[in-house]
């Protein structure tokens, strides 16, 4: 039937559009993370000077900045993903078993990644960020691949491997150089990975399977 063929074609395009939104949300999240997390680290490194200028205690300043940036990252991530998936007209029943396990698993992976770094020895403080987030990227890819709800995001693996590979030489640098180097690597990997995701999402929107 002609109508069925038309609907079937429309559904294929809908799936492609939803994939595009999902990939773009990942890209935006990566860019946000790549800019805000190093900003947090930078502010903590300069906390003593800034807190004197602001006339507040260094500890209080560090806590305030860390909380504000963590909240900003969480709020923006939630915004990017909900605006990609929330549908206004759809009255679809929310399926916990279909949608929540992988979203929960990925959130947990990143929460652990950002908190596990404090348990590393002091001399690995700088590179522990790269190890934790690199592993989190690769684990997120594996969760998405297992869930098979959206097409797998290769950029997660590329970013993860970049972070892990770059951490090896940085681990042998002096502490002061390692701090700056890991911040630069973190920013380049996440902002680069984010933009790559956004660009490939736009390409895949027009070209379909081949570009995805």
């Amino acid at each position, binding site marked *: *039937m002609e*109508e*069925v063929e*038309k*609907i079937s*074609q*429309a*559904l294929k*395009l*809908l799936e*492609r*559009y939803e994939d*595009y*939104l999902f990939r773009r949300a990942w890209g935006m999240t990566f860019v946000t993370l790549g800019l805000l997390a190093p900003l947090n680290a930078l502010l903590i490194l300069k906390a003593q000077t800034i807190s004197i200028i602001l006339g507040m205690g260094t500890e209080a300043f560090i806590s305030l900045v860390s909380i504000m940036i963590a909240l900003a990252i969480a709020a923006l991530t939630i915004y990017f993903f909900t605006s990609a998936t929330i*549908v*206004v*007209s*759809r009255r679809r029943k929310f399926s916990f078993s279909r949608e929540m396990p992988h979203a929960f698993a990925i959130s947990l992976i990143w929460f652990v990644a950002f908190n596990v770094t404090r348990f590393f020895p002091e001399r690995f403080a700088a590179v522990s960020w790269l190890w934790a987030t690199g592993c989190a990227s690769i684990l997120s890819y594996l969760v998405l691949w297992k869930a098979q709800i959206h097409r797998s995001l290769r950029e997660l693996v590329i970013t993860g491997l970049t972070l892990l590979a770059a951490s090896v030489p940085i681990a042998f640098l002096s502490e002061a150089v390692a701090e700056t180097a890991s911040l630069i690597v973190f920013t380049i990997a996440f902002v680069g990975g984010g933009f790559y995701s956004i660009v490939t999402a*736009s390409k895949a*929107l*027009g070209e379909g399977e081949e570009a995805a």
Partner: protein
Amino acid sequence: MPLAGEPDEIPEIGGIFSAPHRLTIMLILYLHKRVKFKDMQNLLQITPGNLDHHVRKLEQARYVKTRYVFSWRPLVAIEITTEGARAFRDYATRLRKLLEKVK
């Protein structure tokens, strides 16, 4: 396959949704409410003029409206209206009933 006794079920509303592109536009807008003009053009792989033609047809039926949204640059977005959502829901319901009869 024409169905005896129900010849007008789909053709009745098929007028506006008969073009595959318009059907896709309505399906995506029904589910996502608002889509950027440029994204829709890339998705459908048609020229801006062609998409504009389909959007105008849907606008004339008051099923969609276009508006400017402000991102880091001004963008045109296509948005479904309440009337459009209702019409598409009716279309989907009729199509589902028709398929159930075929089954």
